[in-house]
C-alpha cells in the first residue's frame, strides 16, 4: 500500500486544488478519487498490464489541465447538462480500472451529447481534444506557473443514442509536448440504433495516452468502432462492448508504431444475450524498436446462444527489433455458438517487393506501398470520406518518417 500511497500522493494535492464544482460533481469526484487511491496504478504484475509498464506515468508529477475541446454538433443532436438525469458519471469509478477512476476524480468539463430517438443525423459528430502549450491549468486559485511541468488532461465524453437513431462520431486526440491524456468515452446505444464511431489518436510522440471506451448496446443495435493509433510514446486503449440480443458489433483497429513507441490495445466483447454478432479486426504495423500489444477477450455468456464472433489480429513487423504480443482470450459458456479467432505476425512479402521493383517502382516506394496496402482494408471500411482522406495522408506521412 505504501507504493500506492506514494503514487497517489501527488495526485491528492492536485485533487484537493481542483476548481470547485457543484455538489453532485464533487461527490462523483470524491468517489472516483477514493477508488483510485484503493487501486493505485497497475503494475506489470497485473495480468491486464503485463506488457505495458505505466511507471513513467505514475512517477511523473503532472499538473492537471484542460484539453482544448472542439465539438461539432450536427443538427438534431442535443448537448445536455452532465448533471441531468440518466447520466451516471460515477459508474466507471466503481470498477477495477484505475485510470477510469482517476478520470472520474478529475471530472471538470464533461461533454454529454444526446441523439434523440429515431433521429437520423447527417454528418458526423466531431469531438476533438487537443493539448497544447496553451492548455489551461485548472488548479484552483494559483494560476498556472510558467513552468514546463507536464500536464494531465482527463476528458470525459458521453454519447447517448436513442432507440432507432443513427449517427456517426469522430473523436480525435492530439497535442504538442509531453503530457498525459486520460480519456473516458461512454456510448449508450438504444434498441435498433446504428452508431459508427471512430477514434483517431495522433498525440505527440512524447505524450502518454490512456483511453477507455465503453459501449453499451441495445437489442438489435448495430455498432462499429475504429481505433486508429498513430502517435504517443505510451498508449493504452481499453475498448469494451456489451451486446444485447441480436446486437451486431464491429471493433476495428489500426496501430502504427515506430521509434520507441508502445501501443497496447485491450478489447472486451461481452456477448451477454443470444443472437449477437461481433467482428473484430485489428491490424498493426511495427517498425524500429516499437512494441505493441493486442489482447482481445470475447465473452459468451451462458444465455448467449447463437452468438457469431470473429476476431482477427494481423501484424506487419518491419524491423528486427520491434516486438508484438498478441493474445486472444475466449471465454465461452454457451454451447451453440460460432467463435473464431486468429493472429498473424509477418514481414513484407519479398516476392511482392520484387514484383513492384521489376516494374520500375523504387525499393523504398515499394516498401511503403506494400505497408500502406496492409493498412488499406481498415481504412477502406471507414465510411466518412473526409476522414478516410485525412487518414490516408497521415499514413503516408507516417511511412515517410521511418527513423532507422
Amino acid at each position, binding site marked *: 500500500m505504501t507504493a500506492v500511497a506514494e503514487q497517489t500522493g501527488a495526485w491528492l494535492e492536485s485533487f484537493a486544488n481542483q476548481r470547485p464544482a457543484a455538489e453532485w460533481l464533487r461527490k462523483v469526484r470524491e468517489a472516483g478519487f477514493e477508488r483510485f487511491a484503493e487501486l493505485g496504478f497497475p503494475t506489470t504484475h497485473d495480468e491486464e498490464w503485463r506488457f505495458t509498464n505505466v511507471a513513467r506515468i505514475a512517477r511523473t508529477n503532472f499538473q492537471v489541465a484542460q484539453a482544448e475541446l472542439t465539438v461539432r454538433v450536427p443538427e438534431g443532436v442535443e448537448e445536455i447538462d452532465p448533471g441531468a438525469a440518466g447520466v451516471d458519471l460515477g459508474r466507471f469509478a466503481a470498477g477495477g480500472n484505475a485510470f477510469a477512476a482517476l478520470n472520474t476524480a478529475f471530472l471538470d468539463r464533461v461533454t454529454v451529447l444526446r441523439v434523440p430517438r429515431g433521429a437520423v443525423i447527417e454528418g458526423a459528430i466531431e469531438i476533438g481534444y487537443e493539448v497544447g502549450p496553451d492548455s489551461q491549468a485548472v488548479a484552483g486559485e494559483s494560476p498556472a506557473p510558467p513552468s514546463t511541468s507536464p500536464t494531465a488532461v482527463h476528458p470525459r465524453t458521453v454519447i447517448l443514442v436513442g432507440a432507432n437513431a443513427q449517427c456517426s462520431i469522430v473523436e480525435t486526440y492530439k497535442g504538442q509536448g509531453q503530457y498525459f491524456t486520460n480519456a473516458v468515452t461512454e456510448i449508450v446505444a438504444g434498441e435498433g440504433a446504428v452508431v459508427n464511431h471512430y477514434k483517431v489518436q495522433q498525440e505527440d510522440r512524447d505524450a502518454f495516452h490512456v483511453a477507455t471506451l465503453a459501449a453499451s448496446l441495445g437489442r438489435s443495435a448495430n455498432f462499429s468502432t475504429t481505433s486508429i493509433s498513430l502517435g504517443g510514446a505510451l498508449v493504452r486503449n481499453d475498448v469494451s462492448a456489451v451486446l444485447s440480443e441480436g446486437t451486431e458489433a464491429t471493433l476495428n483497429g489500426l496501430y502504427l508504431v515506430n521509434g520507441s513507441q508502445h501501443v497496447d490495445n485491450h478489447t472486451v466483447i461481452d456477448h451477454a444475450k443470444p443472437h449477437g454478432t461481433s467482428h473484430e479486426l485489428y491490424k498493426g504495423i511495427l517498425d524500429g524498436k516499437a512494441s505493441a500489444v493486442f489482447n482481445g477477450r470475447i465473452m459468451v455468456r451462458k444465455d448467449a446462444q447463437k452468438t457469431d464472433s470473429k476476431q482477427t489480429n494481423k501484424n506487419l513487423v518491419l524491423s528486427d527489433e520491434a516486438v508484438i504480443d498478441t493474445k486472444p482470450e475466449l471465454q465461452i459458456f454457451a454451447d451453440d455458438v460460432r467463435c473464431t479467432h486468429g493472429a498473424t505476425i509477418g514481414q513484407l512479402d519479398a516476392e511482392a517487393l*520484387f514484383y513492384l521493383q521489376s516494374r520500375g*517502382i523504387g525499393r523504398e*516506394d515499394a516498401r511503403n506501398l506494400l505497408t500502406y*496496402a496492409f493498412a*488499406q*482494408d481498415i481504412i477502406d471500411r471507414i465510411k466518412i470520406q473526409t476522414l478516410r482522406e485525412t487518414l490516408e495522408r497521415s499514413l503516408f506521412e507516417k511511412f515517410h518518417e521511418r527513423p532507422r
Partner: protein
Amino acid sequence: MGTPARPTKEENMSLLEITNLHATVGEREILKGIDLTVGPGEVHAIMGPNGSGKSTLAQVLAGRELYAVTEGSVTYDGKDLLAMPPEDRAREGIFLAFQYPVEIPGVSNQYFLKAALNTMRKHRGLPELDAMDFLDLIRGKIELMEMESSLLNRAVNAGFSGGEKKRNEIFQMAVLEPRLAILDETDSGLDIDALKLVAHGVNSLRSADRSMIVVTHYQRLLDYIVPDFVHVLSDGRIVKSGGKDLALELERNGYAGLGIADEEEAVGKV
C-alpha cells in the same frame, strides 16, 4: 558443346550480352556459364527441361536478389546490368513477365500500373501522366488483351484466374513498352484460346527496337510466337543453339533426342 552456329545480324549492335554467367541459390549453383547475345528486335527462345535454369536466368536478368551471381557479366545497352537494382533495370527498359505473377492485396491494378509507368516516364525525361491521360493511353491496350476493364480496379492479380494473371502481365508489357521483354513460361497453365490471345498480344508488340527472350518448356508457344533463335538450356548451360527449326526438331525428338534427361518428356506432345 562447342560454339553454337549462331546466325548473327550485325556485330556490335547487341542489346544484351551475357558472358559466362554463373548464379547460385544458397549453396546450389544453377547457372553454370551462360553465354547469350541478343540484338535489337531479335526474339530468342530459351527452351529446356524443368530444373535446367530457364526461370533462374529470367529472374537473374530482372534482378531477383534470391540469386547470387558468382561469375560472369551481363552488359545491357552498354551498361553493367548486374550493378543495377531491379527498379533501374525496369526503368532502362527490361520487363519480366512472371511465371507466377504476384498477388498484391490492397494495391489496385490501375494505381500500380500508373505508378510504374510514371516512374519510367520520369526516368526517360517525359512528363508524368495524370489519371485521364493514363486511361486514354491504356484503353487500346485493354482491348488488345481483351481484358475486363473491371480488372483495373481490383487489387493486383488478387483473385485473378491463371489466364487473367498472364494476360495482365502482357497488358503491363504493352503499357510499359520495354526494350527487352523476358517472358517466363507465359504459356504455362493456359488453354489454347488463352495462349493464342497472349501470343497475339506479344506479336503485336514485336518491333525492330524491342527484343524478347521467350522462356518456355513447350514448343507450342513458338508456333504462335515465332523466334529468330532457339537455345536449349540443360543443367545451367546452353547446350545447343539454332534457328526456329531447332524447336521443331525438339518437338519431333524430345529433349532426349539431344541427350538431355527430362522427367516430363513432354516437349511437343499433347
